[in-house]
C-alpha cells in the first residue's frame, strides 16, 4: 500500500482492508476467454465450410490439422489436444460468465420486466447472450466431447455420416445459431466494454460496430447453414456406406487405413 494514505483528509482509507484483486482478474479473464472462443469459432467455421469447395479440400484441411503434411503420417491426437484446450477455455469462460446470470427468480423477473419495458437493443441482446450461453453449456460440451474422443472421425464422409446417419444434425443446427449469435454479440460487447475501436466519435463507432456485428452474424449463419446442408446431402447420399472413410484419388497409400 502506498504510504500517504493515512494523511488523506477525513476518510480513513488507511483503515480499510485491501480489496481483492480477483474481480479484476476475473473480469479480464472473462473477456479474454470470450475473445479467444469467438475468434476460434470464426476460424472453425471457415475450416468446416471447405466442404463447400470440395471433398478433397475438406479432407486436406482435416489432414493438415492431424499433422499429415508435416510428418507424413496422421496424428488425430493433435486434434484432441486442441479440443481439450478449447474445452478448458469454454469451461473457464462459462464459469466466469455465469456470475452475470440472474441468480434467482427475483433477479430473473426484474431483468425480464426491465428488458420488456425498455425496448433497448443492447439490453435485449444481452438477454440473447444469456439464453444462447446457457444453451452452449450443453450443446458445445456434447460436440467437444465427441471430438475429443474421436478426433480421427473428421472427414468428408465421416463428418457427413455423423450429421445424417448419426443424427447429429439437430444438435449442429441449434449449436450453429447459439454460437453465432452468442459470439457475434459478445465481440460487439467486448468492443464497447473496453472502448476498442471507439475513435473520435464513439456514437458513430458504436453504430458501425453494431452493423458489422449483424453483417458478420448473417454471413456466418449463412455459411454455417450452407455447410450443414452440404454435409446433410453427402451424408444422405452416403448412408448405405456410412462409416466408410473418404480418400482422395491422388493419395497413395491410404493414410486413414487404421481409422474405425
Amino acid at each position: 500500500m502506498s504510504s500517504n494514505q493515512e494523511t488523506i483528509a477525513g476518510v480513513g482509507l488507511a483503515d480499510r482492508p485491501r480489496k481483492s484483486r480477483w474481480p479484476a482478474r476475473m473480469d479480464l479473464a472473462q473477456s479474454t476467454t470470450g475473445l479467444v472462443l469467438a475468434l476460434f469459432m470464426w476460424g472453425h467455421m471457415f475450416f468446416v465450410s471447405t466442404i463447400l469447395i470440395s471433398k478433397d479440400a475438406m479432407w486436406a484441411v482435416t489432414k493438415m490439422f492431424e499433422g499429415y503434411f508435416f510428418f507424413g503420417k496422421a496424428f488425430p491426437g493433435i486434434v484432441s489436444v486442441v479440443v481439450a484446450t478449447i474445452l478448458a477455455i469454454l469451461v473457464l469462460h462459462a464459469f466466469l460468465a455465469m456470475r452475470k446470470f440472474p441468480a434467482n427468480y427475483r433477479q430473473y423477473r426484474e431483468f425480464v420486466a426491465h428488458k420488456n419495458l425498455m425496448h433497448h437493443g443492447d439490453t435485449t441482446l444481452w438477454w440473447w447472450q444469456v439464453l444462447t450461453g446457457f444453451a452452449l453449456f450443453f450443446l458445445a460440451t456434447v460436440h467437444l466431447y465427441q471430438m475429443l474422443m474421436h478426433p480421427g472421425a473428421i472427414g468428408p464422409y465421416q463428418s457427413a455420416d455423423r450429421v445424417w446417419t448419426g443424427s447429429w444434425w439437430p444438435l449442429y443446427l441449434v449449436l450453429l445459431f447459439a454460437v453465432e449469435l452468442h459470439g457475434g454479440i459478445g465481440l460487439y460487447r467486448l468492443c464497447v466494454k473496453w472502448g476498442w475501436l471507439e475513435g473520435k466519435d464513439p456514437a458513430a463507432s458504436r453504430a458501425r460496430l453494431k452493423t458489422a456485428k449483424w453483417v458478420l452474424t448473417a454471413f456466418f449463419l449463412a455459411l454455417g447453414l450452407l455447410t450443414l446442408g452440404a454435409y446433410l446431402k453427402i451424408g444422405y447420399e452416403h448412408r448405405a456406406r456410412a462409416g466408410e472413410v473418404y480418400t482422395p484419388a491422388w493419395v497413395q497409400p491410404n493414410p486413414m487405413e487404421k481409422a474405425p
Partner: protein
Amino acid sequence: MASAPQSHRKLRFHILRYNPAKADDEPRIQTYELEEAPGMTLFIALTEIREKQDPSLQFDFVCRAGICGSCGMMINGRPSLACRSVTQSFPDDIWLAPLPVFELIGDLSVNTGKWMRGMSEKLETWVHMKQEELDFKRIEAPMDPALAEEIYELDRCIECGCCVAGCGTARMREDFVGAVALNKIARFRLDPRDDRTDEDFYELVGDDNGVFGCMSLLGCHDVCPKQLPLQTQIAFLRRKMVAQGTKG
C-alpha cells in the same frame, strides 16, 4: 408549416398510483385524459392533471429545465426527465411509472436523494486532499482550461437516477453502484486537486458492485438526459481498474 387551428390530440395518461405510506393502498393504474397543447411537456401535462383533475397525484418538479434532476420517471418504459419530454414525441397513450430501484415516496415521486447520498458516502465522491496541505487561504493552482472543461463535462451530472433505472445490472443487483457513481469516480480521477491514486480508486470500485459489475448494456448511456459520455468513461475506468488489479 401553417399555424392554422389544429384539432388537438386526446392524450391518455396511464399512471401507476401507489402510496406506500397508506396502509390499505394497492398499486393500480389510473388513466387521465387530457387535450394536448402545442409544445406540451410532461411537466405541463402532469401539472394540469394535478390542478384540474386529481390533486392527490404525487410527482416531483423543481426547475422545469432539466437541471435539478427531480422529475425522472419511467415514460413508456424508459427512464427520462418529464420536464424535457415533449408529449408530441409520444403516441396517444403515455404510460408513467416511478423510477425503479429508488425508494418510493408515492405515485411518481421517488427518493433519489437518499440513494445518491448513500452512493456518495460509500464512494467518497468528493475531492480528497492531503491533510498537511489543507490551507483554505492559499490561492488555488490554476488548472489547464482543457482539463477544466473535461472535468466540467462529467460534472454536468444532475443525479436524476435515469442511468440507474435504465441499468439491467442495477435492477438485478441492488448493491451495484451504477453509472452515476462510476462517472463521479472518473471525474475525481481527472481532478488534479484530488490526491487519490488508482490504488485508492480500486478500493472504491474494484469489484463486482463497482466497475466490474457493469455488463456494458449501455442502457445508462442511452437514457442519460444530459448525454454524458458514460460508455467511454466506464470503459476507461474499467481499463484503469483492471490495470491496477492485475498489477498485483
